[in-house]
């Protein structure tokens, strides 16, 4: 393929700027939209403080309650696997760490490549499993929208192209890397406008949930 290096530089340059700008605009708009709506003042006498309960729920919701785990083990386990795998690859792969350092001005230590590679492979398998589950489970099939499949496809493409690029299974490499960066840019662009916002808002949602239950004396 001719022009693969130009393609890579285009994805690394102007397109990345545009994607990140749309991401930042969209995400900030979403967050401001949410917070500016506010909550009505609550006159009911609280049983407990809402802040600590909200903060706890932000963390505890990560783990399913035993009953839910028993009723939907596939959902819980596969969801966990691919989220962890995805985050491992996203946040701890050396090139990604360097990218984060360049965009944010700071970063953290990376993980050894074989570990990230393993996590990525597992993520790909788990993502395929989630798609099969979405297509076959009656509830998931019923509630799924075009957006759900679109988001799946974009996330899958990001992981798959990353895997292909790392293993240099697509030649020339600049094309492989460019496709990976392009996929990631599509992900960034759609993130603030799709359910992918949950990456950020889930923690807000959990806090509100934990706070609402917490002030009534229940750790949700």
């Amino acid at each position, binding site marked *: 393929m001719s022009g693969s290096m130009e393609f890579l530089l285009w994805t690394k340059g102007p397109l990345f700027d545009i994607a990140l700008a749309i991401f930042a605009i969209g995400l900030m708009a979403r967050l401001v939209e949410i917070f500016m709506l506010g909550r009505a003042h609550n006159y009911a006498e609280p049983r407990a403080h809402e802040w600590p309960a909200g903060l706890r729920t932000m963390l505890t919701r990560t783990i399913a309650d035993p009953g839910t785990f028993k009723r939907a083990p596939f959902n819980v386990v596969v969801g966990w696997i691919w989220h962890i795998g995805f985050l491992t690859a996203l946040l701890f792969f050396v090139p990604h760490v360097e990218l984060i350092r360049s965009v944010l001005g700071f970063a953290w230590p990376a993980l050894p490549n074989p570990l990230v590679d393993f996590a990525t492979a597992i993520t790909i398998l788990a993502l395929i499993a989630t798609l099969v589950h979405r297509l076959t489970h*009656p509830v998931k099939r019923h509630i799924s929208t075009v957006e759900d499949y679109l988001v799946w496809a974009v996330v899958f493409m990001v992981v798959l192209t990353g895997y292909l690029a790392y293993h240099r299974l697509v030649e020339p490499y600049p094309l492989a890397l460019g496709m990976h960066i392009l996929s990631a840019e599509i992900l960034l662009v759609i993130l603030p406008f799709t359910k992918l916002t949950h990456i950020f808002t889930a923690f807000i949602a959990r806090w509100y949930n934990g706070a609402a239950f917490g002030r009534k004396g229940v750790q949700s």
Partner: protein
Amino acid sequence: MSELTLERGLAAFRAEIDAPTAAFFSSCVHCGLCAQSCPFYLETGDPKYTPILKLEPLRRVWENEFTLWGRIKGRLGLQKPVTDEMLAEWEELLYDSCSMCGRCSMVCPVGNDLAYMIRKTREGMVQSGHAPEGLIAAASRAIKTGSPMGLQWKTLAVQIQHVESSSGLTVPVDQEGAEYLVLLSSMEIINFPEYLEAITKIFDHAGVTWTLSTQCFEATNAGIQIGNKDIAAELVERVVAAAETLRVSKVISPECGHAYTAIRWEGPNLIGRPYPFRVFHIIEVLDELRAAGRIKTEGKEDDRLSMHDPCNLARKSGVIQQQRNLMALVAENFVDLKEHGKYQWCCGAGGGVSSNERAEELKMAAFKRKKAQIEEVAPERMVTMCATCRTQLEEGLEAFNMEIPVVGLTEMIAEHLVERD
């Protein structure tokens, strides 16, 4: 004459959307786990009962009018509007197949409080004229007669006479300056009059000053169940007025789940001001008396007992340990259901489902989850502390030919009081 319209409904949806709602809808990933926590889905197997789907009308208003992307979609003509037809279709999903038990709010991995949003969505349903007839009738009776069942003071007066003659104690009525104002539910007065006798005995035993109010005896709030803050607020105002008239410092909500959440958590917000008194569930009061050593009991039930936690009391109000403390006082063979407390399963009748005759079939379907839980531990009797739950348990167990009597916890405590000299 004014009428309920789609426009009023949409305005109500808009008014209900707040920061938590926006955060919740932003976060849903369509994982479907909420269905795994919903007895209506689990026992019917119909995916249309997936909790998050029930909120679709509210979600659409949020997306269309409260998000940047929704506005852009609007410009492009891609918005999916909320229509009257849609709301008509959703009426069953929002009322018949949801008891607002809040179990989905506990398990949603992104932390969505779905029950909170169901409550909000019902506001728009009422304003647009899509509330079920059974609940409309109950709300109308509550406003007009003071009781959702149309019960009047004179009926209660008869019950009071019975209690007084069988216990030899006086039931205080309109006693100004008493510590507690006791509220009742119509269902209790009709189905479980033993409750009134039980608290009369216990309060006498513990030396508590209390009173009923002729001005307002009803604790339940049909406005909360149908989902309308105007009606709900009016009903709360009646309680507040009675409590203020009698200058009590504490108000006791009876063995009724939604009555407690209505007056304890929603009430002050409905009337827009804090109360001049505090609100307790009877179980909270009894446990406080127990802890203070003011309840002396003798003897214990020796049969195998288990307990049903009412959703509104346990999961939605944090009263979980209190009833277990009280059980320990009077039962030696108590066994909890496997999933209990904040993770308990709904009996299927709450959230207005029991007042909605149309939902009878779904109500009994949802009960099967509770039935399976009961079968798992095979108790000889069930104990609970909510008249609606108790009625549902009795009806359900009978329908499945299970001979497991259901008793109220307050009565059981009353039976074991040490006789005074």
